[in-house]
């Protein structure tokens, strides 16, 4: 293939911090890769593990969940719930043969446009290195057969 692979990444961004951080990155006219499709959620705690699996099932090669820094949640402790869920999800996802690096949790505040940019660029690079997930005709999602999956 002559064209470089461009990963499809879904980013669940919390409405109070991370989405504002993304807005700030725009206001700052910061440049970053266009691979992340943002979805605004009221709180990162609203991101059910099912959303992440659905995103992967439906075509995402990576999923970013971004929320307020610990202690700063608009709903007091929604992001701690996110932390627990994403930790357990990344433990489970290995059994499905999917590299846990494809699912990333990051804290981005409304003032951190630069952190948002850095996160997006880094994460996109990670997914580029992992390569696209294969989707078989029977609906099964799997790591590319050629790339060695780190377990």
């Amino acid at each position, binding site marked *: 293939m002559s064209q470089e692979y461009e990963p499809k990444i879904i980013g669940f961004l919390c409405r109070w911090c991370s989405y504002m951080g993304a807005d700030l990155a725009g206001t700052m006219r910061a440049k970053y890769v266009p691979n992340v499709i943002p979805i605004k959620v009221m709180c990162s705690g609203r991101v059910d593990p*099912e959303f992440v699996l659905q995103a992967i099932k439906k075509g995402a090669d990576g999923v970013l969940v971004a929320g307020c820094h610990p202690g700063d949640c608009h709903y007091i402790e929604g992001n701690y719930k996110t932390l627990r869920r994403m930790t357990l999800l990344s433990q489970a996802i290995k059994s499905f043969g999917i590299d846990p690096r494809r699912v990333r949790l990051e804290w981005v505040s409304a003032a951190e446009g630069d952190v948002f940019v850095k996160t997006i660029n880094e994460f996109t690079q990670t997914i580029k290195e992992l390569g696209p997930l294969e989707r078989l005709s029977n609906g099964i999602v799997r790591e590319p057969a050629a790339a060695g999956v780190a377990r």
Partner: protein
Amino acid sequence: MAKPKVAFYWAASCGGCEIAVLEIHEKLLDVAAQVEIVFWPVAIDAKYKDVEAMEDKSIDVTFFNGAIRSSENEHIAKLLRQKSKIMIAFGSCASEGCIPGLANFYTKDALMDRVFKETPSTTNEEGILPGPETQVAEGKLTLPVLWDHVWPLEDVVDVDYFIPGCSPAPVTVAKAFETILSGNLPPKGSVLGASEVALCEECPRERHDKKVKKFYRPHEIVDDGKTCLMEQGIICAGLATRGGCGHLCINANMPCRGCYGPPPRVKDQGAALLAAIASAVDSNDEEEIKQIMSEIPDIAGLCWRFSLAKCSLVNKPVAAAAQ
């Protein structure tokens, strides 16, 4: 009016669903009086060719238990679908893959080696594996072909209704039979004989805030007999499982394992249970959270114990043991 013609079949399952039909005890006599059983390999003598000779749609209701994991399972599922007006996935294996579906964590080769070569009680020095065809002096012997994947019934044929459970509780079977015999059928795709709420809502135990510092396996802790099991650190799937079984496991002081599948509006039972377990952890410290969770053995096998075959993220080949 002629009695409805009914068929029962047993594909990839343990046989518990066949027992579950009998477990409705004397009610079975009422059912038997109202229907004509045309095919039920475990109970009456009928051959596949008898079914093949039937007219299309001549069976009124087929109760199909078991997942699809071989060419034979698939053939009979398609045959019975063709011959039946109503196809019912009976039990967890047919509905969502259940325990046989856990095989989807492994390759067929790994499974065959484990079962026929590696188990401690196996003596198989020549390493002979069963194959679809074997030549013997008398001719060629054939076996069904084992597929690479285990499927719930609805992935292979059109399914009209589902009866949940591993195996379905007598109360569920009786209710489902009643519904079907009444002729007053719910919309296609409905789950028969179970609740429309999560088991947690029906649970008789006391509930408070769930704050868990350590998870235990049931044999590692003495349950107090009245508090929510999850609060005591025993992982209970009741939060992510459809009710209607009469909380049989809870009554025996054992946690719900999740065999009734997801409650209405939950698509992925495993993800819902995973969220419930994670939310119960009492810590805001990343390292402590990791430590508490690392003590849960096989989180994917635990959360997707009954619904793995429905979760299409399952990679093949994958060695879960290589984690």
